[in-house]
């Protein structure tokens, strides 16, 4: 068996980042890519847009049709890798093949969490929403039995995206969230409240502080859900969106070190030589602004960047990763929002908050400061130029000279010291 110079398991944002990273260093040596899903690389966040009918299947692709060919990649689609033997540098697949490698990237992403203790959760009509196939199956279900009422379990990002899609196709939607507010992982309370009010204005029933206790079937099909608070919600469609966890099945038994995700260093290398991991499956160094350490932060920009840095290292250029930062831009039924870094700090004098809120408009802007630096921000309603703040967080810029301008309506690059402005204006090599 000849060893592939580069082998990638996975075919999504981290894999694409890796390919583009390798090709920025090495134009020649071939790449082999293995993917469980049978599709050419598509955009995972678009699955809810597809469900909503906002885009068609043709628009799902993340890169042009000639992407693999142009980059010298042999993509083997529809094949599942089942084990890695680091000592022999081999990956084995479910169909009995073995692929040798010189350098390997594990980019198998995450998989949705399904609660184990909910009777009836396997009823036809209960879905997750993390893949192209999921979106297709849900569409077929809606078309097939004319479902009108839906339950979305989980008030995080994917739950919100699911709600938005179902509202767009005209369904009556109930969202349940166990914690006392939606989007609690990325928003502070004020932003969560704005998001909730926006959903409610669009007719969505938002129920916090409870979750589903059992699914009820009628004629073998989902007919409703009973909640922990004893109430029931009629529904013939349910989407479970309580979270995504790194998919570690491939590395089990390989000896590669894991915690929540696959542990990697600042070159994205795992505990095994020549084996790298990136994206939702990885637990990578996190940005200092959020306290450092190694964290799983499952968002697309991190997946791409980690893949890119891993690719460059695999190809022999020493490159260090700057650290993952939680950030998201989410449109809540027409209310644009952006959250970056630490948005809801623990109580205590270490942190200082600057904020402005207009409930009517509505808009909201909040900055979290610590030791003369910005460590987090939330924007809702007005998001133009939010990236300048992201940049200041990223660069750990000292904001003491212009602190009072941060909330002003015309805040811009002009508010920043000339030195910093010059660095931004030069535009070379800025990292996410």
């Amino acid at each position, binding site marked *: 068996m000849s060893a592939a110079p580069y082998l990638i398991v996975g075919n999504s944002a981290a894999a694409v980042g890796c390919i583009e990273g390798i090709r920025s260093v090495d134009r020649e040596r071939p790449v082999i890519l293995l993917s469980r899903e049978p599709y050419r690389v598509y*955009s995972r966040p678009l699955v809810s847009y597809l469900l909503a009918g906002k885009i068609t299947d043709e628009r799902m692709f993340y890169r042009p049709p000639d992407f693999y060919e142009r980059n010298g990649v042999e993509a083997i689609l529809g094949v599942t890798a089942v084990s890695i033997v680091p000592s022999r540098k081999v990956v084995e697949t479910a169909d009995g093949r073995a692929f040798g490698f010189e350098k390997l990237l594990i980019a198998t992403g995450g998989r949705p969490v399904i609660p184990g203790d909910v009777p009836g959760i396997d009823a036809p009509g209960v879905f997750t929403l993390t893949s192209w196939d999921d979106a297709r199956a849900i569409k077929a279900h809606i078309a097939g039995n004319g479902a009108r009422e839906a339950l979305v379990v989980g008030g995080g990002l994917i739950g919100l995206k699911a709600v938005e899609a179902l509202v767009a196709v005209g369904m009556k939607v109930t969202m349940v969230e166990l914690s006392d507010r939606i989007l609690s992982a990325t928003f502070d309370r004020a932003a969560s409240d704005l998001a909730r009010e926006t959903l409610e204005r669009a007719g969505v029933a938002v129920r916090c502080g409870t979750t589903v206790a059992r699914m009820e079937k009628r004629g073998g099909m989902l007919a409703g859900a009973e909640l922990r608070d004893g109430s029931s919600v009629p529904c013939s469609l349910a989407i479970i969106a309580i979270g995504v966890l790194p998919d570690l099945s491939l590395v089990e038994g390989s000896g590669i070190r894991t915690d929540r995700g696959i542990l990697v260093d600042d070159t994205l290398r795992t505990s095994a030589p020549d084996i790298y991991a990136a994206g939702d499956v990885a637990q990578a160094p996190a940005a200092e602004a959020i306290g450092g350490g190694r964290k799983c932060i499952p968002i697309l920009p991190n997946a791409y960047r980690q893949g890119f840095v891993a690719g460059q290292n695999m190809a022999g250029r020493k490159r260090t990763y700057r650290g993952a930062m939680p950030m998201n831009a989410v449109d809540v039924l027409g209310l644009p929002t952006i959250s970056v870094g630490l948005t809801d700090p623990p109580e205590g004098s270490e942190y200082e908050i600057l904020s402005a809120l207009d409930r009517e408009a509505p808009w909201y802007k909040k900055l979290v400061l610590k030791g003369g630096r910005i460590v987090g921000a939330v924007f809702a309603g007005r998001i133009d130029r939010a990236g300048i703040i992201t940049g200041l967080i990223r660069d750990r810029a000292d904001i003491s000279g212009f602190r009072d301008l941060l909330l002003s309506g015309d805040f811009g690059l002009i508010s920043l010291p000339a030195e910093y402005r010059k660095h931004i204006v030069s535009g070379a090599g800025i990292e996410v």
Partner: protein
Amino acid sequence: MKSVKRIIVREEYCIGCRLCEIHCIVRHSKSGKIIKAFRSEKDAIVPAVTVEQKGYTSFALQCRHCDEAPCIEACMTGAMRRDGKTGAVLCDRDRCVGCWMCIMVCPAGAVRQGKCREAASKCDLCLDRDVPACVANCPNEALTLGGDA
């Protein structure tokens, strides 16, 4: 890949006249005519160059077409991409769904929400012309065309 043509921002020379913004709008209007553009299309077009002004300081800024551009890395659809021929960072409006990840990560604040469609609006370097409209119409060379960076 050819290096991108870069627009050099020279803050010392900017007089804050905003002609760059106006000519950017006109160049990206359907009619290409200033009167028509301002009568009927202005509200649909966001200028891709912005003049910022405070006291005696002012400058005009548009997309920096960064190397390793954050907006390309953060784009979830692949709409934001590097043009293979010119190296420019371009947004394919047909593939953009308006998620605003690009706005979130642009350290220059140079990507905006488009007005008429759910698509991001940014500088395209006027690739169909030799000289971008903002540069061509700057009366004081506060915007100039740099060589390959």
